[in-house]
């Protein structure tokens, strides 16, 4: 084995050399003044210093850049709106589709490390936002967007997008979890719409008994609904900065999931990837998913049955979590930041927001949007009225650095609950709490 020994020695020598050279390279910038890199055409001007409250006024004198980059989570990247914007202002928008929310986070994080970021991006509320802000590259929108728009945003939305007392992201395409149900099936079998979690479990069983199909399931982003149930129980993953997954309220939800998947078998275990399709094909009676999928679901269902939407089940209270995405701005040159601000304000135009809602299921985020005629058309659909009604309960907790950790842990938790009847829930929840505590103590962004 002489070969291997020689090899090992070589590795040793190389690594020591490399260790000496590696330590200082490729570190991401902190909030210190750094020369910002640019991605689209503009000139790489000298540093814009720390984002301070005078920035918005500074930009009023600045001429906008002629091109900006926009990363979107929508497949067509709003190409029509981008073209309209260019026609109106002469600023070209280079829009690229980046995949879903998780893909977008990957790309943005890599972009921060490689200093290769767009000017504007659609950022899912799911996770990663705290890290992006603490890296210094995400600009707080409250310093750039006009007061009018900021104040017109329905207050419930800011609860999520406020971090360290700063509004960091502008709500854009947002949604709430709802309970979709097969209205035809319900009517035919005289089933009543459930309003609480316990009732959901009972209804699911009723569906199974009366029709033989599955009663309920959660869509492929199932941690979101779990967290929604948590908020409706008056709790959250972090309460006053302390991890609080290991509580009676959370345990109750876990037990309900076990009941659905294992005991009653009214939910197909570990089959969330195809949940939407399964519901649309009439194989599941109820589906917990986002109001934003309304248009898509209607399409997929077609004539098979009538789709109904009910409010998300209450547990002990109604504190509905927000979903969807917001528009974030990244640091670059003043010219590009100005152009980016103009673009964002353009997208928040009430008429456009209303039309966006009509074409999908996203809720209108500004008061002005809800007052448009388009929105009144939106409200003609009784299902959408239910969504509108639920808006008053919009709440949820602010973004935190542990969002990603919690999302992944909850996903694993639900997977285990459905797959493993022997699971020790208390132990598992305690482990999650420890993981959260460890992460928070290590987190560099808190320093």
């Amino acid at each position, binding site marked *: 084995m002489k*070969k*291997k020994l*020689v090899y090992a020695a070589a590795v040793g020598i190389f690594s020591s050399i490399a260790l000496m050279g590696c330590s200082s390279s490729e570190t991401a910038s902190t909030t210190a003044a750094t020369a910002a890199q640019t991605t689209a055409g503009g000139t790489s001007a000298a540093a814009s210093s720390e984002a301070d409250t005078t920035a918005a006024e500074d930009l009023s004198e600045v001429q906008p850049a002629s091109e900006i980059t926009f990363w979107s989570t929508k*497949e067509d990247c709003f190409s029509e709106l981008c073209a309209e914007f260019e026609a109106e202002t002469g600023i070209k928008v280079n829009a*690229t589709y980046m995949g*879903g929310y998780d893909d977008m986070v990957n790309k943005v994080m*890599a972009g921060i490390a*490689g200093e290769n970021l767009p000017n504007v991006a659609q950022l899912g509320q799911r996770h990663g936002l705290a890290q992006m802000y603490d890296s210094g590259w995400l600009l707080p929108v409250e310093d750039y967007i006009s007061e009018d728009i900021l104040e017109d945003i329905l207050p419930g939305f800011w609860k999520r997008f406020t971090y360290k007392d700063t509004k960091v992201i502008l709500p854009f395409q947002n949604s709430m979890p709802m309970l979709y149900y097969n209205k035809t099936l319900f009517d035919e079998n005289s089933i009543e719409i459930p309003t609480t979690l316990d009732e959901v479990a009972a209804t699911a069983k009723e569906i199974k008994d009366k029709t033989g199909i599955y009663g309920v399931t959660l869509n492929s982003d199932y941690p979101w609904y779990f967290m929604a149930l948590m908020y409706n129980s008056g709790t959250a993953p972090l309460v006053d900065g302390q991890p609080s997954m290991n509580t009676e309220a959370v345990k109750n939800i876990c037990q309900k999931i076990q009941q659905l998947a294992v005991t009653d078998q009214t939910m197909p275990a570990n089959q969330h990837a195809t949940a939407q*399709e399964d519901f649309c094909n009439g194989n599941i009676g109820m589906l917990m998913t986002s109001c934003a999928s309304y248009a898509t679901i209607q399409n997929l269902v077609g004539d098979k049955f009538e789709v109904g939407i009910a409010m998300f089940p209450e547990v002990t209270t109604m504190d509905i979590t927000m979903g969807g995405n917001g528009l974030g701005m990244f640091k670059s040159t003043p010219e590009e930041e100005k152009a980016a601000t103009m673009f964002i304000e353009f997208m928040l135009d009430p008429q456009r927001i209303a039309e966006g809602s009509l074409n999908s299921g996203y809720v209108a985020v500004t008061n002005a949007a809800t007052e448009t005629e388009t929105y009144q058309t939106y409200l003609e659909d009784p299902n959408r009225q239910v969504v509108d009604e639920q808006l008053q309960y919009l709440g949820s907790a602010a973004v935190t650095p542990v969002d990603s950790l919690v999302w992944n842990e909850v996903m694993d938790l639900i997977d285990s609950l459905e797959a493993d009847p022997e699971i020790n829930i208390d132990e598992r929840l305690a482990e999650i709490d420890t993981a959260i505590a460890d992460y928070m103590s290590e987190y560099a962004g808190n320093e």
Partner: protein
Amino acid sequence: MKKKFTWKVLVRHLVLIACAAVILFPFLWMFFASFKEESEVFVEDFHLLPETWRFQNYLDAWNAAPFGSFYINSIKAALISVVCQTCFCSMAAYAFAKIEFAGKRLLFSLMLAMMILPEEAAIIPNYLLAQKLGLVNTSFGIAMTTLVSVFNIFLLRQTFMSIPNDLIQSARLDGCSMLQVFRHVAVPNAKGSMATVALLSFLTSWNNYMWPYMVTDQNQYRTLQIGLKYLIKPDAGPQWPMIMAASTIILLPVMLLFVFLQKYFVQGMLTSGIK
């Protein structure tokens, strides 16, 4: 010798046909599903052939993402990869096969070790490197991680090792330097393996997904595999017939290439006589 028809022959063919059917089934299913209506796909009965042939699926797939540019980008990256691999791998392979030099064993073991590293583990360092070199969103950047393959070096080394030393000796006696021997003696005698390496590297580059995804962030630079992956997981619910159509579009050129060149491909694997 007359071919005898015995039970053995019959059984042998039955087994082979059964295996071939199992191997071909996913391809056939994909091909036929690409012509079906969405509702036909989600039915619990099994019917292979579509009731109505929807060619529209292919148009939808083509328009769902800029597959035209994806095709071009995939080809560009693949060509770079093929050229570099055939050159670099053959050069290195010849050195290992026919030249005695200092540190040969060490370098050989090092190479073996580097074959182990999965690409995904190297993604961030490679991305940062690409960023520094300005290779993000370029064909060369996409091809960057597939310029050399240790497996191909082994393959070629085998072939070179089997070239009789007399040939090399006589060329040396005629006054050729080592490099000239490589160019004029070794390479012409290894055409089969070089073709195999070319094909294998084309395949690796064509089928590469993770790295091209990381190193591109604009649609006009992306490759086919990225386009397909985006179709599978859109937030609006995947449309299976269209995805099958897209998969067929992506697989077709490779399959055709393979069928026409299978002689070289399979021959190359056969005669490299991996020992």
